[in-house]
């Protein structure tokens, strides 16, 4: 990892390591060999391999042949199929088809007139043959052409998992209260802006991918105080017999003593222990805040690489490095937290990250395949308002034709106004668009300079913009005028 950190091109160079495979899971190394599970009758050791539909079909052939020749039992087939990435449903299909085949063969030997199986086989011949696999097994697409859905992979997968690891570290280090106070303060102000690009919510549950995305953007800032400052306990300087209940409880809790009871009892316990000072209650120091900080930094760096709108030929290599650095730190943190199993092994999303550089090479910017935008699930938000009923003839076709017509006309108008019209007409058109449909809320308009200055004095997050001349402004509404104004931000 040291070389990966210091040399940006390290992964491009040939490197051999005897103690790791550098996250190249397909490396032909003895380190990647593992023993076969019980019931696996093919080879003694297994190594990771790239799955293809051809391999899946081969697996089905082997299982079917071995079953009908009665060389393997059902358990052997299930183990072999599972190792070769055939799901439980697939295994059931292989066994069912092999059993049907054997049953038909047996019934044909009896020569009955009204053979039900033969009749059924005539009507549904495929049921009595080898299972042909899932719907895509015989298609023209390969498995690598099925793109990982980044909304699910990154935000509902990797970011959520990493958040869980950090929360675990916070709990183990007894910083939960500290964290709660801080996040309550931090999360309070940003939702007020209602930004479309930073949808933070104050609630701890009910998060969707957009909320994890916003959390990820703010992660460095959110965890900065907790990973850099130490909680200093300030003892009440007055005599112990003048301490209140809260002072007593805090002191006792800090030394791991029982803090329930009457005030006088607590005071006497404290006085007794003060005579022979106790060591402070130890917190879990197995994982340093330095490692947590680095892991968060690596996570943000990796996500920003994956979410890039513009990529070039160097991007896959850079992305590969960021992903491997993040996984390395995730491994360091999760193993030092003494988890029973390593997080990246349990969470398949973490391993799926390794596919992304190749996907970028094939498909370009992955952000263009964001399911929350106009493709995938996100497309439904444009379709749903147009569906009035589902009973009229061709309702689905009509909805799509109308939607495509409107989108095309919008695109024609956008191009016309942006390229062939004056600025005044363009501004008018944009105002019309803003009124007719909701534009994205990208910045906050302060109602007055006073509101901006008060926010600044109170040290709360502040929205600002950068203009094309490279200057920074916080946007403030101009009184009684529809145009916007800006107050210069000085760095």
């Amino acid at each position, binding site marked *: 990892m040291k070389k990966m950190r*210091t040399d940006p091109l390290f992964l491009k160079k040939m490197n051999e390591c005897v103690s790791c495979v550098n996250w190249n899971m397909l490396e032909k190394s003895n380190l990647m060999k593992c023993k076969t599970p019980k019931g696996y009758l093919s080879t003694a050791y297994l190594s990771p391999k790239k799955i293809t539909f051809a391999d899946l079909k081969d697996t089905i052939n082997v299982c079917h042949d071995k079953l009908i020749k009665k060389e393997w039992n059902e358990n052997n087939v299930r183990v072999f199929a599972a190792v070769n990435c055939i799901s439980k449903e697939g295994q059931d299909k292989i066994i069912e088809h092999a059993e049907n085949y054997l049953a038909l063969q047996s019934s044909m030997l009896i020569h009955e007139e009204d053979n039900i199986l033969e009749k059924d086989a005539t009507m549904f011949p495929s049921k009595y043959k080898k299972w042909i696999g899932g719907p895509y097994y015989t298609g023209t697409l390969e498995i690598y052409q099925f793109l990982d859905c980044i909304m699910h992979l990154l935000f509902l997968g990797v970011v959520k998992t990493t958040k869980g690891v950090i929360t675990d570290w916070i709990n183990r280090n007894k910083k939960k209260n500290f964290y709660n106070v801080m996040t309550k303060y931090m999360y309070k102000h940003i939702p007020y802006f209602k930004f479309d690009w930073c949808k933070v919510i104050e609630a701890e549950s009910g998060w969707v991918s957009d909320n994890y995305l916003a959390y990820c953007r703010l992660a460095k800032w959110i965890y900065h105080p907790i990973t850099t*400052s130490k*909680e200093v306990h300030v003892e009440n300087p007055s005599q112990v017999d003048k301490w209140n209940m809260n002072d007593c409880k805090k002191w006792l809790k800090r030394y791991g003593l029982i803090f329930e009871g009457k005030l006088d009892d607590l005071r006497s316990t404290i006085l007794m222990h003060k005579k022979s000072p106790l060591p402070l209650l130890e917190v879990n120091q197995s994982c340093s805040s330095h490692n947590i900080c*680095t892991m968060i930094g690596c996570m943000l760096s990796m996500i920003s690489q994956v979410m890039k709108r513009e990529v070039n030929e160097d991007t896959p290599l850079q992305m590969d490095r960021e992903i491997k650095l993040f996984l390395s730190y995730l491994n360091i943190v999760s193993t030092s937290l003494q988890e029973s199993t390593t997080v990246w092994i349990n969470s398949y999303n973490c391993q799926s990250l390794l596919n992304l550089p190749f996907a970028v090479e094939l498909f370009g910017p992955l952000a263009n395949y964001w399911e929350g935008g106009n493709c995938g699930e996100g497309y439904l938000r444009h379709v749903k308002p147009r569906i009035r009923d589902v009973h009229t003839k061709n309702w689905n076709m009509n909805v799509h034709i109308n939607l495509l017509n409107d989108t095309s006309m919008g695109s024609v108008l956008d191009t016309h106004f942006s390229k062939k019209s004056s600025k005044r007409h363009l501004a008018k058109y944009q105002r019309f668009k803003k009124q007719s449909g909701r534009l994205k809320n990208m910045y906050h308009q302060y109602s007055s300079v006073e509101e901006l200055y008060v926010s600044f004095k109170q040290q709360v997050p502040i929205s600002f*913009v950068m203009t094309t001349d490279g200057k920074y402004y916080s946007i403030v509404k101009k009184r009684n005028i529809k145009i916007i104004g800006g107050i210069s931000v000085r760095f």
Partner: protein
Amino acid sequence: MSFHHVDFDFSKTDDDIKVIDELLIEKYLLMLPEIRMKDSMIQTDDSRSYYCIDSNWQEFDENIKLIYPQSPFCNYSFL
């Protein structure tokens, strides 16, 4: 993670606001204050130190230039 000292000219009033053409806005940013905690209390001192991010996954580096975040302690000089 870089924090930057930020300031406004408090002498400016609502009448001194500069008109901004919405079409000339290039980036949307958010400045996040540096927060310190002491004894479970948030310290609101007058540091005016902010961490700045934009809507395009970038952040300010030490030279107040928007860059994509970089993994800590890593070398990016040859890229």
